[in-house]
């Protein structure tokens, strides 16, 4: 194996314009770091309360079984045990969680604990609370559950067979949701085609981002007010609240969500509401604070697996020169045992329907089914990653089968910079970008010119070298109106985020956010934006760490998910800071006796542009309004406490034609990989990697580069090592980091980075949401492997996950995968 030493130094930044934005655009030191490098962060499991009890779940060893009886008497008899919670109590005390889906998924009955039946290995069937962590587990081991095992359904492709095991009686079958998407004129595209490429089956594997901190909570119940305080690392409290409130038959203001530091989220910490409900019930029942620590194995067994998706009977209409006209495919999506955020994945993919390409005619039949596996939920790149992998795979299979150059096919079909803003066949508007230029930068970074020499050199060492590109999109700031394409009854649309900025009595600038950052440095970037507007420095701006729904700085869609902070979060911060700046000027105009137009905010003062000596320190402004306001004009409406709700411009998409703009911004990734395969074993290494990203104007380049590097590491892990694999009985075979191998320091290839900055015309700061990436690395590796193996019988890379043994199988029997593809010449 080749030992990589260091990342190559190349970093290219090309800007279509480089506006001077004060602190914005600079690598200001992160406010979060000082506490985090000293072990002074406050993560959920660090929170202790007097007399708190430790919860431990009793989990199902079966993938599918009826629960015949549960006996907790031995557990409750054990010294130090405070009490238990069972499914039947949950069913009596709560209502099933609200379902997003239209029928049949709408009929799923999902509770905080299994009621009557378990549907995946690890599903919670009971909770035991005790004085210590160890005792809680001892007691959980004493709970006697008798099961009647049922056959397990583990293959989504079999879910709708008449003889398939049935998960939910209420849904009459395993279908959760299906929909036909058809845009343009697909038949004419095929009529016009010179070539039709048919691909029998492509599979996007099941994995997730496995944040290093698992889920958890410390829940307190206030008997007097009937209010719960939920310290948790849930990353979308707004969503958790609307799931929990109705189920618990309580008002949302009775559910106070508090978060400081979160140890990574990546979407995987959105759907912990069932566990949070269980802890709320226990805190009330046992009248004491309840700690819930989710352990690694628990997380792997139950939490937020990424959507596994099959693409069946794909047909692609192409001109002889490689011009892509359109495609047809049948997507079969495996939602797992319950619908916790699904079936939203059934529409989210449509944000990037054509990928980066200009084809106009698309037909996709989406079928989502339920299986005896862990429930899926958002995972970095949620649902778009699956679809983008599919479109990229299609491009490279087309090039492979028609003997065309993948670079040329991309350049021929990419949406052009001068076509931006570009409206996709389904009405989404790509705001800005230049994919061809990004590709050029990537090719330069990876030394594409010398590819042939590299191949020869590798061959001389008995290695097969392959080159691959992944060009993907990171669509950010959802229009929640897209949920109506799943269920027209839903009353969701648009999006929003809140921030407040106030000037305190001693002139302290205090910012509160509605977001729940998990390492994205919101305290830092928010302080930069505020500093630029108020004419102070980021050090002068105190951004409260974390989230507290009692700060009154959150809205229905508050949280940190779906690549939107740079748009919604900073949009809200800018709005609030502008409001405050305006109030300060209005106060200044009264005190300094001039018009607000004569005033500017600079160096911690509001001052006259013409005569900077005539200035009022912000401290004085704070003091006057808060403590020294006698004699101020009655009509001076100034509180120096500005709250702003940012609302992106969205319409409700058309439910009939499934047409409309689903997201506001489109960050782009064009990544390129070189792999070397050992033909004797199938073992391979990524030996060089180039990542070129465009997320519009960059507020904090270092943070953005960190997000790109992290997303790339996730993609490389998913391409080679990471899988949630199940056996035929529905046992998870990778329940821990021993079997679920994630990249370690020695596994990372050298990565060079490049940037193109195409400011978004649709956002106040020219920024685009980013951070999820589009899983470009998964595709780049797939394409590179296909290229490397070309001379060994031209096997087709048909899975997003290619561990060594799959590569070895492709080498040993290339024909097996060749069977999946055929080309019809018209």
């Amino acid at each position: 194996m080749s030992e990589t030493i260091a990342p190559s130094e190349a970093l290219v930044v090309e800007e279509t314009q480089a506006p001077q934005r004060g602190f914005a655009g600079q690598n200001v030191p992160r406010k979060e770091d000082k506490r985090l490098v000293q072990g002074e962060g406050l993560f959920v499991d660090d929170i202790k309360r007097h007399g708190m009890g430790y919860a431990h779940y009793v989990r199902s060893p079966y993938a599918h079984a009826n629960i015949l009886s549960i006996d907790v008497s031995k557990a409750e008899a054990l010294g130090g045990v405070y009490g238990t919670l069972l499914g039947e109590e949950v069913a009596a005390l709560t209502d099933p969680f609200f379902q997003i889906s239209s029928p049949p998924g709408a009929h799923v009955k999902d509770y905080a604990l299994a009621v009557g039946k378990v549907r995946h290995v690890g599903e919670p069937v009971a909770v035991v609370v005790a004085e210590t962590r160890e005792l809680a587990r001892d007691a959980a081991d004493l709970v006697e559950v008798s099961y009647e095992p049922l056959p397990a359904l583990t293959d989504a492709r079999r879910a709708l067979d008449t003889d398939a095991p049935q998960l939910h009686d209420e849904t009459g079958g395993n279908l959760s949701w299906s929909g036909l998407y058809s845009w343009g004129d697909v038949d004419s595209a095929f009529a016009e085609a010179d070539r039709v490429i048919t691909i029998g089956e492509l599979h996007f594997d099941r994995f997730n981002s496995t944040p290093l901190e698992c889920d958890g909570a410390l829940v307190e119940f206030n008997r007097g007010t009937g209010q719960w305080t939920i310290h948790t690392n849930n990353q979308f409290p707004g969503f958790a609240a609307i799931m929990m409130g109705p189920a618990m038959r309580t008002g949302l203001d009775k559910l106070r969500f508090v978060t400081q530091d979160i140890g990574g989220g990546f979407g995987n910490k959105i759907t912990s509401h069932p566990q949070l409900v269980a802890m709320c019930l226990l805190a009330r029942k046992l009248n004491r604070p309840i700690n819930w620590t989710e352990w690694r194995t628990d997380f792997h067994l139950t939490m937020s697996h990424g959507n596994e998706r099959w693409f069946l009977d794909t047909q692609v209409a192409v001109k002889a020169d490689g011009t892509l006209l359109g495609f047809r495919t049948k997507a079969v999506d495996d939602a797992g045992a319950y619908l916790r955020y699904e079936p939203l994945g059934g529409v989210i993919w449509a944000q990037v329907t054509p990928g980066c390409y200009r084809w106009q005619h698309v037909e996709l039949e989406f079928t989502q089914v339920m299986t005896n596996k862990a429930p899926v939920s958002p995972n970095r790149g949620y649902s778009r990653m699956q679809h983008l992998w599919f479109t990229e795979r299609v491009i490279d299979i087309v090039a492979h089968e028609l003997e065309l150059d993948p670079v040329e096919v991309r350049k021929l079909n990419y949406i052009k910079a001068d076509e931006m803003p570009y409206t996709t066949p389904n009405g989404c508007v790509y705001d800005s970008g230049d994919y061809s230029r990004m590709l050029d930068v990537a090719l330069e970074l990876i030394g594409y010119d010398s590819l042939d020499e590299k191949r020869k050199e590798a061959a001389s060492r008995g290695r097969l070298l392959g080159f691959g590109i992944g060009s993907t999109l990171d669509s950010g700031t959802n229009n929640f109106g897209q949920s109506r394409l799943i269920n027209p009854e839903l009353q969701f649309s648009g999006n929003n985020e809140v921030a407040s900025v106030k000037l305190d009595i001693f002139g302290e600038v205090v910012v509160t956010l509605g977001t729940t950052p998990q390492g994205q440095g919101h305290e830092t970037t928010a302080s930069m934006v505020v500093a630029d507007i108020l004419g102070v420095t980021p050090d002068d701006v105190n951004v409260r760490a974390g989230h507290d729904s009692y700060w009154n700085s959150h809205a229905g869609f508050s949280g940190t998910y779906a690549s939107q902070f740079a748009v919604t979060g900073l949009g809200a911060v800018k709005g609030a800071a502008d409001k405050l700046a305006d109030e300060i000027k209005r106060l200044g105009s009264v005190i300094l006796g001039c018009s607000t137009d004569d005033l500017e905010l600079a160096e911690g003062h509001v001052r006259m542009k013409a005569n900077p000596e005539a200035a009022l320190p912000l401290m004085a402004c704070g003091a006057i309004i808060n403590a020294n306001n006698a004699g101020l004009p009655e009509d001076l409406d100034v509180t120096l406490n500005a709250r702003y709700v940012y609302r992106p411009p969205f319409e409700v998409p058309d439910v009939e034609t499934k047409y409309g703009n689903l997201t506001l911004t489109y960050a782009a990734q064009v990544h390129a990989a070189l792999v070397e395969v050992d033909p004797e074993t199938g073992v391979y290494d990524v030996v060089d990697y180039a990542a070129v990203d465009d997320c519009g104007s960059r507020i904090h380049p270092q943070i953005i580069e960190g997000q790109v590097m992290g997303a790339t590491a996730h993609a490389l892990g998913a391409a080679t090592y990471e899988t949630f694999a199940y056996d035929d009985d529905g046992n998870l075979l990778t329940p821990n980091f021993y079997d679920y191998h994630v990249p370690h320091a020695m596994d990372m290839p050298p990565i060079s980075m490049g940037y193109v900055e195409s400011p978004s015309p649709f956002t106040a700061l020219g920024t685009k949401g980013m951070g999820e990436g589009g899983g470009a690395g998964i595709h780049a590796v797939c394409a590179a492997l296909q290229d490397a193996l070309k001379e060994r019988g031209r096997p087709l890379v048909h899975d997003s996950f290619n561990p060594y043994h799959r590569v070895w199988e492709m080498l040993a029997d290339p024909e097996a995968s060749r069977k999946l593809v055929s080309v019809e010449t018209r």
Partner: protein
Amino acid sequence: MLLREVEYARPSSVEEAIELLAGHEGARALAGGQTIVNVMKARAASPDVLVDLNRLEGLRSISVSGETLRIGAMATYTQIMASSEVEVSRPILAEVSAQIADVQVRNRGTIGGNICSNDPTNHLPPLLVALDGSMTVRGADGERSVSASDFFLGVYMTAVGEGELLTSVSVPAAANAADGFASVTVGRDGTCLANAAACLAGDVVRIALGCVDAVPVLLTPTSSDESSVRQAVQEADIDPPSDVHASSEYRRHLAEVCAVRAVDKASRRG
């Protein structure tokens, strides 16, 4: 993460350790703990009593006497990597130890723990079989020596009986021995999918395959040329377990590749 209740004792002499092991039902030795503690977290196998050997400095010594390199059972991988005795008398042991897991594990994990746990994916069992090592096992009624090829009885099963303690591991000292080790792992320094150790001494060829059976599989092909090594692996007719990382068939193939590569490394060293 949360262990079942267990009793703990930290003897200050080997004799005391053996008394504790013999005197308590379900007592097990606690060496580095890098395997057993994790198994206890899973609450799968669980001893009733842990006899902590970590204060028995005598069991950590590494020495060369005449033709023999003797490594105390409690010598850590880190110690073995740094040992001048190992370097001059059987460097392959340091080389392979350096491939095990990570710094933290190498700082705690011991040669004794590695071979007594005998997880099929461990590095040292096949290596010691190939090197024709021998293990010194002590019980209430004295010491006995067990050759590596008789030591391993099954997964997590060795010749160390109830109330007995592995005290040291010996291998022939041979500075320029033609030894080689090859493996295919999940990620760099990750879990072995397959591994093989080879030792060439004159016309004697010893190859031990790991990961393919409950115990290392010893092969003694007539020659070290590739064809006879491959033939030896094929004739061994191994039936490796399948798991999520590799099918039985793939492991069988990798075993052959590793054997050839281990022999190749060995011959280039000799």
